């Protein structure tokens, strides 16, 4: 499905972000430095005209990745390369370099109710975005045309009906379209969409996703789609990356990852996702490495009885050594507790990998 020739727009290597934990009281006196390991050693590539999806539960660090890629936070270490050009570790906020960067990489926020300033109308939001990136043109006429063009792209027509509206006068879907239009005002090459539909009404989510897909095709955008809903990642993305507790655990072609998940965490995720078809087809075929974890999916809340690991994601202040999933993993081995699994190839396509010791030596 993926064409290897596709151009890499944005690339991250070893991306790491540690947030310092604010120390108070007596802890401030100790020299021990405590940090939240929000993102550790993340590699990803966004290709022109393709959607890459980053899937993970809340707190897995996926939103932090988006903000790091948008350079809203300085990263702790790692490289971010735009068309192969490295970007400085800390881009001055609001500086010229930052503007040049964000002209090409734009971020869409999760909550359209919060990402538009309630005191400004649609026209202000879009005009500012155009002005900053020098695309407002000369004079009123050109600006009008640019605004109309933007709103037309996100299917808010006629433009005049929306320009003077304040965010509270718009529905959730309309707001998210305005937010997308604002991102498009920069004419970016890469769009980072942080859970763009999770706050929207169910019936209009697909409309927004389809709009993004349509834009991707027309404008040849590279899109990073961040979500906790693995089914929508399958629907929308070409490539799926799975994150757990700040680390990437699996990646590959979206169909492969969702249909034949390799990492035990991905399997857990897939198994936990609501799936009406489980009622009708009782086939519990969950990947080739299916062991004890997949026994008996019948009855109950689809798959009750399966010893699905309990527990909760670990504290990111002192994450578990080795594989971060090992305290919850049904297949845990001694090695998992001490050594960090590298990316290991799964299957023979070469595209599918998992950071799990179960696949050591399997593909080689």
């Amino acid at each position: 499905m993926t064409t290897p020739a596709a151009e890499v727009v944005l690339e991250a290597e070893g991306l790491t972000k540690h947030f310092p934990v604010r120390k108070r009281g007596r802890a401030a006196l100790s020299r021990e430095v405590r940090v939240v390991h929000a993102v550790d050693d993340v590699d990803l590539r966004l290709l022109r005209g393709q959607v890459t999806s980053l899937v993970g539960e809340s707190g897995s660090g996926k939103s932090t990745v988006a903000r790091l890629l948008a350079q809203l936070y300085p990263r702790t270490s790692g490289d971010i390369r735009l068309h192969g050009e490295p970007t400085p570790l800390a881009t001055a906020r609001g500086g010229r370099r930052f503007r040049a960067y964000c002209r090409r990489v734009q971020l869409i926020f999760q909550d359209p109710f919060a990402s538009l300033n309630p005191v400004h109308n649609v026209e202000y939001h879009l005009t500012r975005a155009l002005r900053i990136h020098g695309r407002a043109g000369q004079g009123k006429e050109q600006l009008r045309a640019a605004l109309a063009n933007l709103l037309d792209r996100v299917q808010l027509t006629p433009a005049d009906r929306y320009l003077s509206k304040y965010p509270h006068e718009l529905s959730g879907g309309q707001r998210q379209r305005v937010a997308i239009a604002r991102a498009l005002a920069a004419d970016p090459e890469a769009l980072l969409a942080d859970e763009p539909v999770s706050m929207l009404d169910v019936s209009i989510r697909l409309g927004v996703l389809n709009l993004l897909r349509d834009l991707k095709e027309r404008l040849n955008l590279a899109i990073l789609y961040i979500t906790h809903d693995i089914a929508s990642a399958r629907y929308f993305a070409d490539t799926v990356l799975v994150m757990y507790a700040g680390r990437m655990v699996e990646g590959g072609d979206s169909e492969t990852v969702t249909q034949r998940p390799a990492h035990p965490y991905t399997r857990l995720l897939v198994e936990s996702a609501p799936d009406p078809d489980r009622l009708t087809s009782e086939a519990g075929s969950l990947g080739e490495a299916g062991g004890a974890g997949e026994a008996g999916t019948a009855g109950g809340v689809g798959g009750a009885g399966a010893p699905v690991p309990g527990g909760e994601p670990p504290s990111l202040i002192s994450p578990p050594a080795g594989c971060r999933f090992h305290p919850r993993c049904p297949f845990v081995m001694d090695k998992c507790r001490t050594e960090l699994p590298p990316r290991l190839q799964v299957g023979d396509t070469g595209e599918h990998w998992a950071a799990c010791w179960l696949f050591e030596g399997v593909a080689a």
Partner: protein
Amino acid sequence: MTAAATGLTTATPPPDLTGTGGAPRRGRGLRRFLVNGKVTTGLVILLIFAVVAVLGDTIAPYDPSKRSSDILQGPGWKHWFGTTHIGQDIFSQVIVGTRSVMFVGLAAGAVATVVGVVIGVTSGYLSGAAAESLSAISNVFIVIPALPLIIIITNVVPNSGDWTIALVIGCTSWAWGARLLRAQTLSLRRRDFVEAARATGESTWRLIGFEILPNLTAIIASSFIGTVMFAVATEIALAFVGVSGISEWNWGEILFWAQGQQALPQGAWWWFVPAGLCIALFGTALSLVNFGIDEFVNPRLRSNARRSFRAADGRRVRMRVGFTPVVQAPPRGEDNER
């Protein structure tokens, strides 16, 4: 530390309450703010005081300091509010005194608001040691009892005219507003729309000036009003205890003379009642406007929706938390298709 509630709670409307509640909104919101009964009442009273303050000596029937032979007279046609021990007209004193009160209140409010906005927003938006120390300084100013400090300073500073007093009050009473603004700025700074504007490439000063400040309008207004109230009360207290230089008439001055000349034992109630009522009325008007702002910011406080009604059978039904009233015959007539 989650402690130290700011007093200004950010409220979210209850779930699924479509059509009621909601965040403060511009346009429609401003209109709703102005038609709020409390706000209108408060603004009308303030307007009357403002007119009196501007016209002052031109509408006062007498020169407030002029002696006359009508000594210690009760209210009557000639002297509406009566006279003092040396025959001065109290009504004229109240009228003329309005200007000084308004001037000190507004000037001190303006000074305190400017200082409060600068310190509050800066310490809220920036992070690090500078912001922390600014915040610590404002906390110190909140805790230190203001009136004694102001009395000392005005006593020490020579030539305390209205300007000096306004400046001293303004410079010592900005902390409360700064604290509220800091708390609100801290929460706004993390809002998505500020991040989004930053991701669009807005510069820092534009973020503060155009994205954050407009959202602080209500709090700035409310802290301005709060400081005006405090400044007026303080100025009057200063005049009452005789600290401020007796340069001009103000309401506190009237009370000072009333107290000093034994108005009470002589039963000359008219000497101090009008000025006191004016102070209370002025304060009430300011509070009313502030209530309006509170309700504007915190939708839960809004009382515009009726909370009790007469049911079809004539019973009076009060909406009670936890026991939703049941009215079998809809109180507003059958119209399902609204």
